[in-house]
């Protein structure tokens, strides 16, 4: 949008165009790579790809909350849980047997319907949790969301008649493609492609929001909430929107997770899972969409691949993440792949270290 305004000489403009072409070519290559990669790796690596994809969705959503709007949500994983449980419960695998759950129709369409329903469900839950808490200032918000995250987990752990409590819900059905009747089963590859589609959709939605007045409002809130309010930004509503978008993204990831592992239990949703996603967002670059994806890859992918070769390194996983968080805040708060605005700033300062654009 603001690229329409040229304030610099023609050379720089030409360079920008050239760079954009390189970036686009890189993106096409990367996408292509992501599409074909599962066919060249082992089964275990395919499972890891699915894990990375799920995490990328989570990071994408949390990036809206933390990166754009600057709201530290430490209970983010709760929305992942509500997504997973929505499908777990309504699929009929849990203690509650909804009347429609046994039908052929539900076996074919249920998953896809829930994938949409969870958007509404999580939007509601996000708004419900958000509207009282988002009035709070930053650090209070962090601890209150942490509390809410734990409450969701403990409630799931104790509502025997709804969530199956600690035993969780097992035998959650796999998705089926209606009409042609293709069953995803346990094979990781179809889940990977489904997640890839969801990721692309998420990226498009969030990029467009970022480039609208809503995105500007989020950044304004992150930068200076009082000033944003004074400039006519309805801060509470915008924060709620960010919260809700984060919640829905996590919810979608949760639905896929539940159907992939055909099992959910509260143990998957503790506070450290929230920290993990946060770490991905911070490492990649707060407010940067490619950054969150790269962060998810580094935080989940790298350790998992390493674990295939060096299982003993797992001991150091969270320890390393701790160092990463502190070091990033001190030395590189903009992350591995800084958001566009930051990048522009660095470029203007003549910083040669413009990171991670595909030069190849």
């Amino acid at each position, binding site marked *: 949008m603001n690229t329409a305004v040229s304030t610099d000489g023609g050379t720089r403009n030409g360079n920008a165009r050239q760079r954009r072409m390189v970036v686009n070519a890189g993106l096409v290559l990367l996408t292509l790579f992501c599409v074909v990669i599962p066919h060249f790796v082992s089964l275990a690596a395919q499972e890891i790809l699915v894990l990375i994809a799920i995490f990328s969705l989570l990071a994408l959503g949390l990036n809206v909350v933390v990166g754009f709007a600057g709201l530290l949500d430490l209970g983010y994983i709760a929305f992942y849980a509500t997504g997973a449980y929505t499908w777990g419960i309504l699929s009929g695998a849990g203690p509650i047997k909804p009347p429609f759950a046994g039908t052929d129709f539900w076996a074919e369409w249920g998953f896809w319907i829930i994938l949409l329903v969870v958007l509404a469900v999580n939007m509601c839950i996000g708004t419900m949790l958000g509207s009282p808490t988002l009035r*709070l200032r*930053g*650090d209070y918000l962090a601890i209150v969301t942490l509390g809410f995250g734990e409450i969701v987990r403990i409630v799931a752990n*104790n509502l025997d008649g709804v969530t199956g409590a600690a035993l969780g819900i097992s035998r959650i059905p796999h998705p089926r493609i209606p009409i042609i009747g293709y069953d995803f089963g346990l094979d990781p590859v179809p889940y990977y492609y489904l997640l890839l589609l969801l990721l692309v959709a998420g990226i498009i939605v969030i990029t467009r929001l970022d480039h609208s007045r809503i995105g500007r409002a989020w950044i304004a809130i*992150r930068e200076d909430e009082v000033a944003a309010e004074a400039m006519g930004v309805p801060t509470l509503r915008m924060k709620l929107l960010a919260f809700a978008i984060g919640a829905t993204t996590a919810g979608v990831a949760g639905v896929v997770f539940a159907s992939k592992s055909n099992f959910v239990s509260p143990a998957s949703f503790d506070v450290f899972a929230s920290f993990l996603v946060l770490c991905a967002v911070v490492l990649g670059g707060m407010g940067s969409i490619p950054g969150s994806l790269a962060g998810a890859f580094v935080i989940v992918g790298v350790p998992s691949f390493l674990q295939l070769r060096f299982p003993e390194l797992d*001991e150091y996983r*969270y*320890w390393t993440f701790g160092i990463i968080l*502190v070091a990033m*805040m001190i030395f590189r708060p903009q992350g591995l792949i800084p958001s566009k605005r930051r990048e522009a700033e660095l470029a203007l300062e003549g910083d040669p270290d413009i990171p991670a654009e595909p030069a190849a």
Partner: protein
Amino acid sequence: MPDCLTSELPFRLAGGLSTGAVYAMIALGYTLVYGVLQLINFAHSEVFMLGALGAFLTVSRLVPDGGVTSEAQGILILLAAAVPAVLLGGLAAVALERVAYRPLRRRNAPRLAYLISAIGASLFLSNSVRIWRGPNFETLPRTIQSRIVLDLGNTFFSGILPESVQRVRIQNRDIIVFLVAMAAMIAVDQFINRSRTGRGIRAVAQDSETAGLMGVNINKVITVTFIIGGLLAGAAGLLFAWSFGVTRFQIGFLPGVKAFTAAVLGGIGNIRGALLGGLLLGVFENVAAGCFGVQWRDVVAFLILVLVLLFRPTGLMGDREAT
């Protein structure tokens, strides 16, 4: 009326006070640092954990192979263990401030950066201990036998007490933890209100910019604040490890979150409030566990936190707006 509010109430109060005293001691550190920096030191819970670890390491070295021979020997060992526990706490707190916070302060980083840095530091510290000491609880050798010192159902005048009160049993550790928490609160309160450094802390807490202009060395004040918070957390860690006879890399997390809740409940930035908040939270939790079941204990604590922040953000004794 349910039992938890009638016949069980007296002994649930007693139990809650003993739990709450530990919260109170940790909460003092949160409140102090918050007062000065307006920063929640998320890693404070790990300072507490390190205090417990320091106590464990000393006690397990000092207790002879056959166990302690007398109560006096046990007391001496505990007192000796207090030194490394408290020092480790203070040291860890200062290190935290230097490594995780000061560089951020220097470049005037946004609040979010502090929080993330704090979470990182917390993960680092607890997992360092995990890598070093392993994932399991480590058991402290016995020093002072924990025992019931006051059983209201079994004293000379028991007959005249109502039946519900007769069920109160007080252990020696309850009394010790409670007394130490009180003493710590009074000492800190006096220090802040009477000493020169304390005045500096108050000045920075009220308006750091003006305090800086008036010649207060802000960095020094902040360091001192962290040291005091760390000493208290270290002492709390010692008491905790001794009370429950164990330590582990993760013991800090839950008491840390609870203590923060206590600090908010009492009024963040308020020293007496931290004590009040800690004790109240302990009591609420314990009574609620009786009313709704033990598994809902933490939920009640978190709900209290949310409700306080929503309806009385200044806490019970605070004057500072939390929102």
